[in-house]
């Protein structure tokens, strides 16, 4: 059922503002729009991790926020918390921590995780309560909407939305053939 008009593409290319993991000159870029409180994203998390370790420098992985905040009450704060930790260079540590503790994302939990990953607890709490990264998260969200993100997780491979199943075999095969 391939229909050229239906191919959704990233409306905002990967750039300076993104959190990027993996080789900067990688042939393949995988972008995920995700929600830390979404159980499907939680299932995708170890799959992406495994693929990253298998593909090494051949893969560049980017995570953008797509919190369904009205449905998942902790999703917005969780997204902001990773961004705040990111200001101290701890984005990926916090990202991993959140997905590994999806069912415990209260404010106290977030502050505890931030401390564990090495962010300054006082600054972190202040920024979390002041919602200093709220706009940043919304920008991610809207870039997703404009790119045809219709649920979480949504993946893009080299800028094109990946509509197949994201089980490890299928996703790996798609990434390898894109490189």
């Amino acid at each position, binding site marked *: *059922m391939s229909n050229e008009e239906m191919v959704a593409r990233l409306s905002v290319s990967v750039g300076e503002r993104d959190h990027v993991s993996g080789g900067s000159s990688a042939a393949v870029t995988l972008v995920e729009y995700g929600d830390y409180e979404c159980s499907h994203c939680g299932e995708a998390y170890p799959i992406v991790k495994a693929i990253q370790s298998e593909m090494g420098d051949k893969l560049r992985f980017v995570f953008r926020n797509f919190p369904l905040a009205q*449905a998942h009450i902790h999703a917005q704060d969780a997204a902001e918390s990773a961004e705040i930790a990111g200001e101290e260079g701890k984005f990926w540590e916090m990202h991993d921590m959140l997905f590994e503790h999806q069912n415990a994302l209260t404010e106290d939990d977030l502050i505890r995780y931030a401390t564990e990953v090495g962010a300054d607890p006082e600054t972190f709490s202040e920024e979390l309560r002041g919602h200093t990264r709220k706009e940043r998260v919304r920008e991610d*969200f809207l870039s997703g909407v404009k790119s*045809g993100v219709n649920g979480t997780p949504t993946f893009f491979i080299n800028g094109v939305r990946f509509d197949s199943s994201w089980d490890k075999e299928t996703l790996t095969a798609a990434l390898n053939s894109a490189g």
Partner: protein
Amino acid sequence: MSETTSVLKPGEKAPDFTLQSGLDDTITLSELKGNPVILAFYPADWSPVCGDQIVLYNEILSEFKAHNATLLGVSVDGAWCHAAYVTNSNLNFPLLADFEPKGKVAREYGVYRDQDGLSERALFVIDSEGVIRWSFVSPMGTNPGADGILSALKALKTGGETK
């Protein structure tokens, strides 16, 4: 894939309707004239959250409002079902019950499915004069997202009316 051929197209007048919205209210389309309306027909309440069209639109209401557009969800579910779904999913826009006679409005827009008694997953963007400016029917299992709606609303502003 069977295709609905009678879907109302851009340029056609949007058929007026009055449907129950919530347990005690009704909404009449023609009373919303003066601003754009987004009609989102969908098969049924209670889809799983993470990929759900209605839940997604609920997160984007402020973008629709930036275009002064009103979003109306329409399905053949009854008002009590809608009310429970609205509460459960914390929805902040009305879901209309196209329930009695069943699917009447969906039929008028050409998006009723006789084979299963549901409406298509169909979107209409209606301008401030009550004329359809964009329509789209998505495969039943595919959440069409919101990018098409946002582009259509933008086009209303830029390419639209010269009056």
